Structure formats: structure tokens, C-alpha cells
């Protein structure tokens, strides 16, 4: 097919930049032409991103769609930096989300921004290039460049076109992000300097970082996690977000909520988690705890907001807490659900900000009390607003539900969400800890709270009597406004009704990530675990007996295998600076010693993982386990759960 002979990714990444250059050549008083050019170039970029989805091979979990000829070339050979781009299942849809939201943003700013239109559009398009580049980069140096490039246009968008406290918000945004990212730079440099060869490529840094000792991993992980946690933002680091959101112009808020925050969670999935599995095992429950606090705290604070925009901003804190919780669960459902929720949140929160912008354009007010009963005045807009709110609240059939549900499932089945040795479990000897269920249960509170604050906002704004006289004169959505609101609604429905379209492409990547993080066979282990659950419920004796034998022989199931050191043991090791498992294995002459070889072969096992076994044996047993598990899984499966094994 001719489609594959085109460097689609590079076209998508640099398309907006070309648009920005084109806009730069047009005189600044031609505002209509400027806006149209920006809109159609971003729309063109969206069109260019569609072949990415078509060409993406759902069965593969590694990076793909790299056109070797153009997209894997030396950039700074002196340092081994390459221009290398590609996508996996996680970045694929985030890229599409970015290209989807940007034209809507530009369309929404046709009226809202009259001052320095040219610069505004250039900033938006450069920002899009930065985001797309950061998502597609397969070279850590390249990623860092794009990561920082995103900052400047966003800073200008908030600071130049924002609200009354824009300068404060812009500088705060910039400084918060910078503190995290410079420490990440030091960490990147450290990992790079430990490598055998000069190579900044993602997979090489994964392997290098995994070979480091426990204490080094812990520090480096903290440096990475700080950068990403600020961006997400996680609970104690979230204070820049409401300021930035409230002061930013509509398009800025949409991009910020829709894509920029996802850079934090994406960074966790792409960099922090696969690079430092040892440290991750130690830190995961604590990060998940912060995420949980963020879920509930964000929801409670959102509840009492009188400003719609800051309500939506705090709801972002809450929703992104779900994403992080899902990622830290380290289960296929958790990671897939977290990824799905990133998309859903991008669509629904982006849509909410567009709606708030719609009202702000008409009334120049953002307080909830300034509205009331406008459903009668603007019925079309109100219907759209209601759908988007329901999507955000997680109504089944709309975008939010699937992601949150998967995250809760993932968290409840997690083996990583406990603070001590796992003695207690609802499933006896094997199974997730009580704390996992507590995490999931408390997070569910966040779902309920979301419904509370969102629906009460809707009630106070849309329904009841029209209190303010000015509200009777609001005009309903114009065709241009429908053109940017309706796609959001459609996307919310599409995400809610056809989640399989997305999860089927995310699953293989999730499986591979878990393999990288926990060693080979993690996916199968979880599936076996599901089979165990089924056994406990249905007493399906025979297959599970085999599975149990398997476990006993191989010391599988990290949490309570005989050789397991438990999290406390791991803490001790990290603090005492024991060498990581990779070093141990190399010292024992086991494992694949080729650090630069195929990652899949040489990933260090999770503690007590399967890779201690001869290859063939493991493979056979895994295949067997998978077959055995299949029947029982069906019973245990809850609908919509992606438990098919890839390949």
C-alpha cells in the first residue's frame, strides 16, 4: 500500500509548524485570512494523523510507524542523539487527540481573541508541534527538547491573552514545570552517562536504567516522577493548575487540560515506569496514595467552587488522579484504563472548557451564580453542555465511564498497591491485598463526588428560573460554535460506545510495558490470576490446580512467593544500595548479557519473576497456563474488560 511509504509522523509533527510559518508571512491586519489559514492547516494535520490509526498494527506492542529512511536519522552524532519518532498504542491516540483538539481550539478563538491574532495563532500551532513531538519522540533528548518547547508558547498564551492575574499564573506555570524538568534532565544525563554506548534512544535508556543499582534507581525515579507529577499534577504539586486554567484563554485551557496534563501521565508510562521498575515497586503505592488524595481532594474542592472554570480545573485534578492510580496499579486493566481515561478526559474536559468559553464570550462572567435557567434560553447549547458534563461524570455509554471502570478494576486487582508484606487477601494465599481494594473503593468515592459536583453545577447553571436579566438575551450556538462543540459530543459518544476500537490498540502496548516493567510473562500472570479468582468463585478445580503447581515451582507471584523480599525488604535493599537484579544476574552469569540487544530478552525480571527459568520451560508453561486460563477467564471477566492475550 502506498500509504506506508510516507513519513506520516514527521508530517504530522511539523505540519503545524509549517502552518505557523505560513501565518507569519501574512500581514497582521488580515485577521480572517489568518484564522482560516490556521484552522485549515490544523485540520489538515488532523487529516494527516488519520493514516497513523489506519496503519497502526494492533498486534504489536513496540514502537511502530517509524519510517526508517527519514525518521530514524542522526541529529547530533557527537552525542548519539537521533531524530527518531514512532508511536505505540499509548502515544498513538494521544497524538490523534492533540490533532483533534487543536482545530477546535482555533475555531473557538475566532471571536474570543481580537488582540494580536497572528501571534496567538502562531503560538497555538507551535504548541501543537511541541506536543506532537514530545508524544512521538523515541529519543529522550528529542523528547526533552519538545517537552521544553511546549512551555514557551503555553506561557505566552496564558501570559499575553489571559485574564487579570495572567502574569502571575504564567510565571507560576513556567517555574513549576521548569523545576521538575531540569531535575529530570540531570536524571536523563545520569542514566545516559551510565550507558555502554552513546545512545539516547528510549529503549536503550530503559535497559541502561534497569541495570542500575537500587539506590540510584530510587533517586533517578524520584527526579523523573517529580517532573511528571508536577505536570499531571499530583496532589501536593497541583497548585499551579487552577491558576493557569482560570487565567488562560479558552483555547489555552482546552489544550492545557486536553493534552498538556497528559504529558505527565504519558511521561510516567513512557519513561519513569519502564526505566526504574525496582524503584517503581517501592514508590507505586505512595504515588497511588497521592493520586487517591488528589481524586477525593480535587473533587471536594471542585464541589465548593463558585467559578465554573476553577471547578473544571479541580475536576481535572480529580480525574487525572484516576489516571495515575490506574498506571500505578501495574495491571493491564489499570494501564489500559488509565490510557483510555487520558483520552476521555481530554475530550470531556476540553469540551467543558469550550462550553465555559462559549458562555464567557457572551456574558464575560464565569461564576456559577451569574447563570441559571439558561436551558430555556439556549436549548441547543444546553443539550451539548449536558452531554459533555455527563461524559465527564462517567455516565455509561459516554467517554468517561469505560476508563474509570477499567482503572477501578485494575486497582482492585493490583499486586503493587500495598505498603507492607501481603498477608491478608480476600482470595486466600494468592491475590491482591486488602489495600488494593481499599484504593479502588475510595477511588469510587471520587466517581460519586464527580457526579455530585458536576450535576449540581449543571442544575444551578442550566435549570431553574432565569435569575439575571442579562441571561435572557444570550444567543444560542452559531454554526461556527456548533462546528467545534458537536465534534466533541460525537467523540464522547464514540469513546463510550466503541471503547474496543481504542483498547484493542492499547492492549498490546500495555502488555509490552508490563513485560518491560515486571519481566516477561506479566500479562499471563495476571490472566492466571484472573483464573484464580474464577476458581475461588466457582471451584473449577482441575485447571487451577495445575496453575497453582506452576506457581509453586516457579516462585511466581511476586507478592507471596517464597523468595519474595516484600516491599519492606525492597526498601531495605534500596536504602542499603544493593545492586539491582540485572547486576545480580550478570554476576551469576545468568541472563542475556548483551545490554544493547533486544530489550525483550534482556529485561531484568521483576523480583522473583519468571526469567530465572529456562526459556523453553517458561514458554511452555505460559502457553499452557494461557490455554487453561481461557475458559475460566470468561466467567470472571466483567464486560468490557480487555483480557484477550495479544499475539
Amino acid at each position, binding site marked *: 500500500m502506498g500509504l506506508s511509504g510516507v513519513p506520516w509522523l514527521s508530517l504530522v509533527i511539523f505540519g503545524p509548524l509549517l502552518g505557523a510559518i505560513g501565518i507569519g508571512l501574512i500581514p497582521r491586519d488580515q485577521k480572517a485570512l489568518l484564522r482560516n489559514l490556521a484552522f485549515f492547516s490544523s485540520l489538515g494535520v488532523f487529516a494527516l494523523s488519520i493514516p497513523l490509526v489506519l496503519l497502526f498494527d494492533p498486534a504489536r506492542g513496540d514502537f511502530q510507524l517509524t519510517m526508517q529512511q527519514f525518521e530514524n536519522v*542522526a*541529529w*547530533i*552524532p*557527537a*552525542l*548519539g542523539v*537521533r531524530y527518531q519518532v514512532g508511536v505505540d498504542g499509548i502515544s498513538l491516540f494521544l497524538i490523534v487527540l492533540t490533532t483533534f483538539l487543536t482545530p477546535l481550539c482555533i475555531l473557538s478563538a475566532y471571536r474570543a481573541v481580537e488582540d494580536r491574532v497572528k501571534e496567538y495563532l502562531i503560538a497555538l500551532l507551535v504548541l501543537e508541534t511541541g506536543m506532537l513531538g514530545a508524544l512521538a519522540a523515541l529519543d529522550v533528548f528529542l523528547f*526533552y*527538547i519538545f517537552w*521544553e*518547547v511546549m*512551555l*514557551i508558547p503555553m*506561557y*505566552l498564551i496564558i*501570559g*499575553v491573552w489571559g485574564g487579570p492575574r*495572567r*502574569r502571575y499564573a*504564567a*510565571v507560576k506555570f*513556567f*517555574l513549576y514545570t*521548569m*523545576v521538575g524538568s*531540569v*531535575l529530570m*534532565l*540531570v536524571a536523563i*544525563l*545520569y542514566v*545516559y*552517562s*551510565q*550507558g*555502554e554506548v*552513546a545512545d539516547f534512544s528510549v529503549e536503550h535508556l530503559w535497559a541502561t536504567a534497569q541495570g542500575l543499582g537500587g539506590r540510584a534507581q530510587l533517586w533517578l525515579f524520584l527526579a523523573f516522577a517529580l517532573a511528571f507529577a508536577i505536570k499531571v499534577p499530583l496532589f501536593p504539586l497541583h497548585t499551579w493548575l487552577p491558576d493557569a486554567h482560570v487565567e488562560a484563554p479558552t483555547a489555552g485551557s482546552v489544550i492545557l487540560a486536553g493534552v498538556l496534563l497528559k504529558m505527565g501521565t504519558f511521561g510516567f508510562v513512557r519513561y519513569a515506569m519502564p526505566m526504574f521498575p525496582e524503584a517503581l515497586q517501592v514508590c507505586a503505592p505512595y504515588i497511588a496514595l497521592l493520586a487517591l488524595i488528589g481524586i477525593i481532594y480535587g473533587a471536594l474542592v471542585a464541589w465548593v467552587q463558585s467559578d465554573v472554570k476553577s471547578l473544571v480545573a479541580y475536576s481535572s485534578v480529580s480525574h487525572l488522579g484516576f489516571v495515575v492510580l490506574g498506571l500505578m496499579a501495574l495491571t493491564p486493566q489499570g494501564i489500559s484504563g488509565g490510557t483510555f481515561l487520558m483520552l476521555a478526559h481530554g475530550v470531556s474536559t476540553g469540551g467543558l472548557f469550550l462550553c465555559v468559553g462559549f458562555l464567557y464570550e457572551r456574558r464575560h462572567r464565569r461564576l456559577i451564580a451569574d447563570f441559571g435557567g439558561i436551558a430555556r434560553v439556549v436549548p441547543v447549547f444546553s443539550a451539548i453542555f449536558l452531554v459533555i458534563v455527563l461524559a465527564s461524570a462517567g455516565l455509561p455509554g459516554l467517554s468517561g465511564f469505560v476508563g474509570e471502570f477499567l482503572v477501578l478494576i485494575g486497582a482492585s486487582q493490583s499486586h503493587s498497591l500495598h505498603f507492607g508484606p501481603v498477608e491478608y487477601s480476600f482470595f486466600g494465599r494468592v491475590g491482591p491485598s486488602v489495600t488494593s481494594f481499599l484504593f479502588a473503593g475510595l477511588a469510587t468515592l471520587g466517581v460519586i463526588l464527580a457526579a455530585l459536583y458536576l450535576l449540581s453545577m449543571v442544575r444551578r447553571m442550566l435549570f431553574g428560573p432565569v435569575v439575571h436579566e442579562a441571561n435572557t438575551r444570550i444567543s444560542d450556538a452559531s454554526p461556527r460554535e456548533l462546528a467545534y462543540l458537536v465534534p466533541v459530543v460525537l467523540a464522547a459518544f464514540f469513546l463510550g460506545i466503541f471503547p474496543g476500537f481504542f483498547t484493542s490498540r492499547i492492549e498490546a502496548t500495555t502488555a509490552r510495558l508490563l513485560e518491560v516493567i515486571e519481566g516477561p510473562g506479566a500479562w499471563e500472570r495476571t490472566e492466571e490470576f484472573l483464573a484464580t479468582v474464577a476458581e475461588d468463585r466457582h471451584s473449577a478445580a482441575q485447571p487451577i490446580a495445575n496453575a497453582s503447581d506452576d506457581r509453586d515451582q516457579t516462585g511466581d507471584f511476586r507478592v507471596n512467593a517464597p523468595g519474595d523480599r516484600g516491599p519492606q525488604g525492597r526498601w531495605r535493599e534500596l536504602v542499603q544500595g544493593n545492586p539491582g537484579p540485572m547486576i545480580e544476574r550478570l554476576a551469576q552469569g545468568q541472563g542475556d548479557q548483551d545490554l544493547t540487544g533486544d530489550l525483550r530478552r534482556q529485561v531484568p525480571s521483576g523480583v522473583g519473576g519468571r526469567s530465572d527459568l529456562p526459556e523453553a520451560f517458561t514458554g511452555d508453561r505460559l502457553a499452557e497456563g494461557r490455554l487453561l486460563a481461557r475458559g475460566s477467564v470468561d466467567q470472571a471477566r466483567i464486560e468490557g474488560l480487555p483480557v484477550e492475550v495479544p499475539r
Partner: protein
Amino acid sequence: MMPAMEIAAGVGRFDLHGLTPGMIITGFGLLVLLLEIFHRGRGGRAYLGGIAVFGLVLGGMWAYLLWNQRFSWSLFRMMAYQDGFGQAFTAIVVMAAILTCLLATDYLPRHQSDRGEFYALILFAVTGMILVAVAADLVTLFLGIETMSLAVYVLAGFFRHSRHSAEASLKYLILGALSTAIMLYGIALLYGVTKTTHLASIGQLFQESPAICRFNAEGFAVGLQPLPLIGMVMILVSMGFKIALVPFHMWAPDVYDGSPTPAAGFMATAVKVAGFAGLLRLLMIAFVGWPARISSTGWVPILFVLALVTIILGNAAAIVQNKLKRMLAYSSIAHAGYLLLPLIAAGYAGHQAFNGAVPYYLVAYTLATLGAFGVLGYLEKQDQALTYDDLDGLGKRHPWVAASMTIFMISAAGIPPTAGFFAKFLAFKAVIDAAGIGQFGGVYLVVLAALGILASVAGVYYYLRVVVHMYMREQHQQGPSFLLGRAAAVAIALCAFGSVALGILPNRLATLSYISTIEMADTPEGPEAIVPAGMARTTGGGD
């Protein structure tokens, strides 16, 4: 590598050949002075700036040709080197001087000081700087520093009518003379112990001689004897004054503030380039050889502390400034701290290759700083210091100037995709690479890198303040408006273009600066030195 000790009789052809760039530039300086004699009355001297630029370009090209010969020799009986290092630093100094001359051709007439001496003084200062860069002997080094300094003292006081300018010049002169005295005393002490002023011979003694090193029971050098230690520290203090390290930085903000703005830019950049050239020569050739542990009594711990203090205090002091020139002065102090990082790495891990970051950093820093000083020069009202408020609304009044200024600020703050980012990247990379290689105390280096990079976030704050004022505030009162002269516009555009281009395509310059530091003559490692695994590929650019 042993110093070449053969002594040629008289002055040879090669001796002069190696100094050709300096001679060309001196010649043009004299020519400018001569032409100035024929002028009476004010104005009409812009063409002298053109002549100066022509001379500098010629000298710079000659330096490039010399470098391309790719082998080193010593000049005038071991008084100077003809090597890649010297020529590379010559090129950087010449670049700074060219930009300064371009900026000055418009600036000086505007401030009623259109006199040809300015260009002549710049050219003479450059001659001194070239001498510093090629110095193979403490005497040459001293001569170069003095030639440079005398010219720069006069440049600082170039506004004869201005009391500020006179004050700046006097301050610089008095403190400069003090630092010169300290350096001379240090040289005398070293000479007293080593009986030589050749850098390479001193270096040899520093590695072997019990008169200089203290040895422990196993025969390992553990530190210095008191006398050479004091001599070395004195020389370092004097160099620290030239490159404005905390706590020898007090003069910098006052002097920059009072001097004509292009001259201040020249001091902040070219003088610093020359200072680092001299410092590298001293540290890599003369003061080598004992274990450079953080805990030892070598220069590594001294520079370690100086770098940390300089970075943190420089950035902190810059935050509280209201006058732009003083802010740039403190930021240039902080940059000197970052520039020390590769030196510390090289001293600690014993591979001069780490210094590859220094020339790159200096180029990036020169472009951003001179560009910023250039912009300020044109905003300036008569003899009145610019504050942040004078920038209000610049983004609307002069969009291109504001855009260039934004690029300079972003580059100085070290944010990609600019040269400044890559420069900081290389500097911190050197430290962290060294931390992985050295035997002991590597964690100190990682801490240094972490603290330094966090302090650079503080830097982001005050650089962004400029952007805030230019774009995010409306103009309140009638601000200064100006017409950018053609030459100055060219200079500012060159700086802006260079800052972005080197950020996007840094490979060539990074390789060149790496090679130039490797090619420094008479270092114990020499060009064929074993370089750390992380750096090995930088020579050829292979992958």
C-alpha cells in the same frame, strides 16, 4: 607529553606565522588610530568601525586557516603556542569583537561619542586576548591580560562627559590593578619554587617534584606544599577577578552599569572568553598532576566551592535587580559559574575532554549576552539606566527587536531550542559523566549539578521577567522609541539567528569545541588521550 624543550635561535618564520591573526588585528588597530587623526569635528567615523570589522574578519579567517593545519608548535622559545585551542578561542574573541563594533557604529554617534579610538581600543584588547589564548608562559599570559585590561579600562570610561562612566572606569582600574598585583605575586611565588615560568615545565614539576607536591607513604601525591599552593591560589584569585566569580565579582555590576553599553557587552563576553582561555591553559597545563579529589588540596575543591557560590549568588542577586544592565551583569556572573562546571569535571576525572563544553558555552553565551546588550543599547535614553518598566509594550512597538530579545533571554535561560540550552546541557553532562568515572566523591558532583540546575530555574524567573514586560504589559508612559541602525540590526539579527541555529543544529560546533580542547598542546593527555567512554565518539562524529 613532554614539552618541546629545543630552543631555536632568534625569531623564526613559524614564530610570526603563528601570531599572524594578532598581528593583523594590531595593524588594523593602528590604522584606525591613524585615520582618526584626519578627522576634525564630530561624526562620520562609522566607516572606521567598518575597517575594524574588516580587520577582525581577516584575523579570524587567518586563525581558522592556522587551525586547519592541524598540528601544534610552540612560538618564540616556548612563549606561546600555535594550537587548535588558541585559534578556537581567538575565533570566539574575534566574533565578540565584530559584533561589538557593529553595535557601536550606531550607538556611539547617538551618545555624542563618535570617536575612532573605540574601535582601536577594541582591536588592541582583542590582541591582548589572543595573547592570553595562546600563552605558553606565565609572562605571556600576564602580558596578554594586561594588554587586554588596559584597553578595557579605557573603554569603560569612554563617555568622557559622563560621571558614571568615569566612576566605572576608575573602579575597574583600581580593582584590576589590585588583581594584577595579586597575580604577579602569585607568579613570583611559583617562580621562586619552580624556577621557571613555562606552563608546561611547571606542570611537569607539579606532577613529580617533592618541592611542590606532598606525597603520602605509598608515594601518591596527596596535595601541595604551602608555597606553591599559595601561589596557585593567588593566580586563581586574579583570574577569578577577570571572569567575575563570586566573591571577586563586586566590580562587575557597577562597571557594566556605567560603561557604554557595547563596551559593557564586550567586557561581559570577550573578556570572559579570554579569562577562561587563560584559566584552561593554567589548569590543564600548569596545575595538573595531583589527585584532584574533592577533598584534596588541589584546585578542584576550590573551583567547586567557587562555582556553587557563583551560580547561587549570581542568580539570587540577579533576581532582585531592577536595572536591566545590572541584571545582565549578575546573570553573566552566574554564567561564569556554569562555565566552571566542565573545568571541575575535567579536574576531577582527569580528562580534559570534558572541557569541550567550554567553547560551546562561550559562543552561546556571547551571542545571547551581546545581543541583549545590543538591544538595551538602543533602548537607552541619555545616561539613564534602563529598568524593566522601560520595556513595557516593546512587543507592540518593535516586534522584531522584542522577538530577538526573547530569543536572547530564552537562550540565556537555557531553554530549548536555543544554543543556550545545548550549552548548559553540555556543561551539566560533563559534570555527570565525570561523576560516573571518578574514584571518589562522585556524588558531590551530582549534587553540584542538581543545585546548579535548580539555581538556573531562578535564572528563568528574571529572564522571563523581561519577556513579561515586553509582551504582557501595556506601555504606560511615553517610552523610549528608537530607530535601529543598519549595522546594529545586522548584529542583533546575527546573534538571534546564531542562538537559534546553534540550538537546532549544534553538532558541528559541539564537535569543533570538543576537538579544540583536545588539541590543547603540552597537556599530559594530549590529543591521543584516552577519553571516557561517553565522550569517545565525539571526535569523529561517528555513530
